[in-house]
């Protein structure tokens, strides 16, 4: 009955209640929206890269390997440095149209395309070519794609071998296999071919790293990649370097950067860490902004409750004369602010879920993640903030003696 009474008190001035609730609904939506984006990005990155050992050497100012160009003879210099184990040259480029589709233009269109459209776009769907120096790469202990091959039982085929040098054989991800399906809609399989640019390539293996960032890569032998992408012999994009002693990785990074100019060295696992660090900072910044919004929402609720209680002093006085204690009054007003918070939380969560569903219909290759825990935090958080915000008005209402409440109310 107490809760029903509290709800009715809120609904007596429904517009005021709605405005106060909206004040807290907005931060809830912002909080859920921000974390759904953040979780989506983390999901996009996956965890495979984070567990990989080894280093990558690329141009100093290149943000990613596809924009990096290094002289091929740098491999010799790298090999002379103490602690360097394996040095594998790599060529990275954005893939030409695949099966007649793709490329940058299609990526841009794809970002705007609705779900179900044929153009597979979105930044994470942009396919890239990696050409590997197989003689060296096959020695790597922590090779991302080789370690992520599907088992033969699952139709994974095999990774590239030395016998694939000069041959149009590729290893593709299950994601690419699905995004460029056969005419009957089934994903491409090992043994079939895939048209890249103007050339057909035989699919010899399928991998799945679990990261949407790496699962856009078509792996082939470096010579084949040079020919396909028009990359001269003297140029490579990056070098995959494996230290002789994995514990020596940090010292080796310093050593390479001291001895070679115009490059930067990064742990492969750091790609994830960098994104995580950026996301962490972004989340902190957004949390601060949301914190301010929450504060404003909380003050709005406190103000609403204060107005509501100050209008009802006589009512509280009458309740006290019938035997209600201070605690009963405190409980009633706190129940009202708690319900207001629950209302804000429910509104905020509903809006956020609806927004995520709508936005996910338009996004390609990237999904906003809104899990039940986030929804719970939004709901409980809003309720807790409103409850705390209502404590002062509740205390104000409860601290008056019945006589004061009746007199004070009479003055209003």
């Amino acid at each position, binding site marked *: 009955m107490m809760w029903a009474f509290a709800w009715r008190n809120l609904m007596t001035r429904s517009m005021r209640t709605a405005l106060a609730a909206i004040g807290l609904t907005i931060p809830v939506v912002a909080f859920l929206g921000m974390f759904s984006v953040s979780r989506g990005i983390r999901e996009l990155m996956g965890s495979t890269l984070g567990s990989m050992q080894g280093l990558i050497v690329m141009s100093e100012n290149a943000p990613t390997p596809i924009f990096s160009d290094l002289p091929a003879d740098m491999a010799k210099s790298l090999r002379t440095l103490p602690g360097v184990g394996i040095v594998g040259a790599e060529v990275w480029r954005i893939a030409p149209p695949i099966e007649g589709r793709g490329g940058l233009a299609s990526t841009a269109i794809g970002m705007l395309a609705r779900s179900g459209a044929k153009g597979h776009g979105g930044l994470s769907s942009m396919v890239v070519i990696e050409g590997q120096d197989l003689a060296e790469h096959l020695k790597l202990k922590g090779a991302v794609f080789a370690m992520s091959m599907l088992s033969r039982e699952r139709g994974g085929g095999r990774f590239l071998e030395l016998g694939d040098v000069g041959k149009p054989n590729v290893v593709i991800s299950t994601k690419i296999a699905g995004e460029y399906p056969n005419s009957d809609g089934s994903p491409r399989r090992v043994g079939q071919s895939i048209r890249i640019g103007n050339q057909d390539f035989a699919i010899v293996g399928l991998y799945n790293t679990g990261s949407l960032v790496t699962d856009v890569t078509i792996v082939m032998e470096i010579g084949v990649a040079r020919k396909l992408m028009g990359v001269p012999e003297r140029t490579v994009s990056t070098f995959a370097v494996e230290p002789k002693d994995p514990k020596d990785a940090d010292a080796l990074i310093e050593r390479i950067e001291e001895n070679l100019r115009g490059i930067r060295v990064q742990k492969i696992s750091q790609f994830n860490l960098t994104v995580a660090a950026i996301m962490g900072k972004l989340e902190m910044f957004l949390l601060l902004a949301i914190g301010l919004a929450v504060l404003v929402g909380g003050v709005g609720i406190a103000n609403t409750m204060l107005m509501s209680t100050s209008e009802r002093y006589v009512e509280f006085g009458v309740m006290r004369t019938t035997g209600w204690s201070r605690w*009963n009054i405190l409980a009633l007003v706190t129940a009202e602010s708690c319900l207001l918070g629950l209302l804000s939380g429910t509104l905020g969560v509903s809006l956020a879920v609806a927004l995520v569903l709508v936005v996910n219909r338009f996004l390609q290759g990237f999904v906003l993640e809104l899990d039940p825990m986030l929804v719970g935090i939004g709901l409980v958080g809003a309720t807790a903030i409103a409850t705390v915000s209502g404590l002062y008005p509740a205390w104000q209402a409860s601290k008056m003696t019945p006589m004061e409440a009746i007199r004070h109310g009479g003055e209003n």
Partner: protein
Amino acid sequence: MVDADPSKGSPMIEVIDVHKSFACGDETVEALRGVTFGLDRGACTFIVGPSGSGKSTLLYLIGALDRPSAGVIRVDGEDVAAMTEAEQDRYRRSKVGFVYQSFNLIANLTCLENVLLPRMPLGLTPSLKKQATDLLSRMGLRNRIDYRPNRLSGGQQQRVAIARALINDPVLILADEPTGNLDRAGGDEIINLLRERKSTLLIVTHDRRFLTPGDVVLEIEDGRIKDRAGVTASP
């Protein structure tokens, strides 16, 4: 000074040398200046006097809505002024029923819920709801139990307020100008309803037409009992 009749046992209400003063800006206003009287159980007492004489203040002190500046107030053997706040809450809930001039019903609650208001914090039971419904039926409001107060006439609202005052079966009913906002017929009806109760009745009023032989009349003026206008008073 009014004394209780010793033949009727211990008095229901004992008020001994009660003073009450309020701070009003820089001045101190003495609302009650040494009031002493006793009232028997079941007595119907009217407190009369001019505005500002201290009638309502006395009523609220007996109802433990406020504490006297000095003096002793005993109701049903309990020293009201010496009670803790929790004890006063319990006292108001279990022994006293208040009726006000302006009805003071809660607008968000139905008639039935208003009657049940004193019991709301303790939880409502079906038997309590039945008791409240019976009370409203006796007040002639059986077909209004789900109405909000704004749909009732003044007389009907005051009848709901009386039902609320009676829900805990109090030993003492305190009414502050209960007919002040009602017409003549409505006022008569309310006083008659109050008189039907076996509880001790203390009514503050300006209207002497309600006084009947057998009633106790306390006339207050300037914070003092001026006269026990008496048991034999007649309108």
